[in-house]
């Protein structure tokens, strides 16, 4: 009987299709929209140390003599964004040699289960003065982070956890902000009655879902026709095939909105190969897109989710262990968009195609070699 209830529940779930989930949070949408216009506080030219108006947390109770042993539980380095970010973080560690005795990291390879074990092992090892966590998913990692926070100071960044236990949670404005910037630009630039194709990486990733929720909302508000929203799995070939099919089907696409920029160039190439004019497009701060933008004089914008946020946790952790107050419990970093006006500042054809321009790493030692540049 009870099983029947369960099965019925599943069937009902399946038949009603997508179940509303809290990716579309109007309040958060408004909050991020507002943050986009907030002026950053903090040292000029160092956005990774700036904040968009946060409180300070007293960290005197964590104070201890240095140098410190830092531990980092990483969700994974399974995409170029995380690769650039992790490189930033390692460079930041090297830049603070004087304060850091050791930096140990564990890579969870994108598995929640493994990351929980990794965090537990760090806590038990006694080798960590502070723990930095980049959670694979928010909900799953919450208990492990909470448990760790009872034993040592924890800094969380990128994705958060459902808890106030970490000393601070660092990230830029967020997914809604990204979505708003891209979609508003496209909505403004395409001709009236124009059509937009949305290309998404994959479903279910919170940041990406937020980006799409915001964009969808903007497009709806402006009455823009979205001819399709397709998942590309971040695969160039698939992206190109999808765009070709849409061009075949509709003859003309005026705008392309993307929830992440890695396949933006492939999408543009599909227009080239079909002999169609370039669409209005948003990419991200990857060099290949920026270079193509500059070369072909696209009508484009590049909202960002800056990789310089990987520097901040190291800085924060050291400050915490020194007993200096840090921004918290949430530390919002600025999240600028690259536009036609400031494009030249970010284009750098010495850097690899998927290098993220907003790495904030230009002044660090071993730049650009460490990031794969020439």
């Amino acid at each position, binding site marked *: 009987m*009870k*099983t029947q*209830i*369960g*099965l019925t*529940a*599943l069937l009902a*779930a*399946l038949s*009603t*299709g*997508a*179940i509303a*989930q809290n*990716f579309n949070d109007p309040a958060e949408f408004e909050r991020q929209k507002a943050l986009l216009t907030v002026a950053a506080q903090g040292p000029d030219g160092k956005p990774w140390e700036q904040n968009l108006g946060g409180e300070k947390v007293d960290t005197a109770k964590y104070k201890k003599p240095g140098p410190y042993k830092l531990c980092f539980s990483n969700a*994974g*380095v399974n995409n170029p964004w995380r690769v650039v970010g992790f490189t930033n973080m390692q460079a930041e560690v090297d830049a603070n040699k004087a304060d850091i005795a050791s930096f*140990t*990291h*564990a*890579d969870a*390879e*994108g*598995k*929640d*289960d*493994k990351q*929980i*074990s*990794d965090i*537990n*092992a760090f806590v*038990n*090892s*006694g*080798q960590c003065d502070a723990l930095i966590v980049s959670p694979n*998913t928010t*909900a*799953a990692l*919450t*208990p492990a982070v909470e448990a760790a926070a009872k034993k040592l100071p924890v800094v969380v960044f990128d994705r958060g956890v459902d808890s106030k236990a970490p000393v601070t949670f660092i990230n830029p404005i967020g997914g809604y902000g990204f979505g708003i910037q891209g979609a508003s630009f496209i909505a403004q630039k395409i001709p009236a009655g124009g059509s937009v194709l949305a290309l998404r990486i994959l*479903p*279910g990733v*919170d940041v990406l*879902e937020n980006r799409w929720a915001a964009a969808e909302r903007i497009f709806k508000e402006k009455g823009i026709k979205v001819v399709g929203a397709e998942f590309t799995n971040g695969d160039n070939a698939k992206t190109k095939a999808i765009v070709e099919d849409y061009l075949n089907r509709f003859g003309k696409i005026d705008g392309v909105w993307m929830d992440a920029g890695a396949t933006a160039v492939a999408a543009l190439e599909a227009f080239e190969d079909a002999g169609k004019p370039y669409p209005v497009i948003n990419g991200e701060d990857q060099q290949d897109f920026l270079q193509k933008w500059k070369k072909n004089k696209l009508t484009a914008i590049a909202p960002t989710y800056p990789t310089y946020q990987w520097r901040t946790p190291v800085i924060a952790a050291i400050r915490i262990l020194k007993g200096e107050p840090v921004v918290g419990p949430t530390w919002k970093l600025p999240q600028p968009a690259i536009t036609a006006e400031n494009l030249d500042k970010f284009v750098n054809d010495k850097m690899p195609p998927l290098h993220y321009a907003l790495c904030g790493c230009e002044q660090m030692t071993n730049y650009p070699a460490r990031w794969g540049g020439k």
Partner: protein
Amino acid sequence: MSAGADIATARPARDVPVAPLLFAGSLALYIATALATGQHAYLTGEGFVGLTQRMVALGIVALGQTLTILVGSIDLSVANLISVSAVLASFIMKGEPAMIVPAVLAVLALSAAVGLVNGLIIARLDVNPLIATLGVGLILQGLLSASFSNFAGSVPAAFQAFAYGRIGPLPWSVLLLFVLAFAIWLMLTRTRFGAHLYATGGNRDGARLAGLRTERVMIGAHVLCSLMAGLTGLYLASRLRAGAPWVGRDGVYDLESIAVVVIGGTLLAGGRGGVWGTLAGVFLFATLDAVFNMTGIDAFPKQVLRGAIVILAVAVYAVRSKGHVA
């Protein structure tokens, strides 16, 4: 071929004792690394508990996979079923302690049904098990992802005890893994179903001629395997506090469970092997995770090493086998 008749009258030597060797080797590697890197915390009771905790998810599903491989089949749908189970569990529970029992029953019922479908397609429609379970896995994942795109619902605190609770120093979940392993070992070696499972895997036609209902055995193995995958899903839902439609796929439980079963000395073609080898294989994987963490090897070289270790671990005893493999 024609070894002397008298030789056979002696009780013959068994094959290489894969399980203890693998277990001892992994343990030695673990201890040596902990000592060499000076991370003595890994050698405390808590360190070892952490190590065994790493075994649970892969361990439970690998126990099930052992059965399908022993019976001469294989199950590529486990990863997707794990996702389905985790999501279904937390979706039904929605944080309500009262819904724990219905949710668990629903997950187990659904898992059994998936196993039944796998088994029927393989045994009745004569579809190659790789293709059949790959197909069923795709179907499951598609239905799941169409319905849920993120963590669905949540599990109540009471259910989290499954993953986080302890009896003395030992986590419940680790205990469950070993109890399951023991139960399946008992089933394989001490029950008729176990004997028939080996027989069906060793020589399906021969077993049928001997009057075994090989189809039922095949289906039974798949149902049990799917139940194990369902349990893994429940465990992950409990550990992650909710189920997400990607937990199984991200864990690569399909290929990894097959790898540990084969590393544990179970014949891919079926008919020979057992649970302790599988558990030793799981232990090796857990050890590798811990060792890579201790030594701080980067993610990419780690992948290279892991691939090489999978091959070498199987090669160590496979290399002496006669005849051809494909």
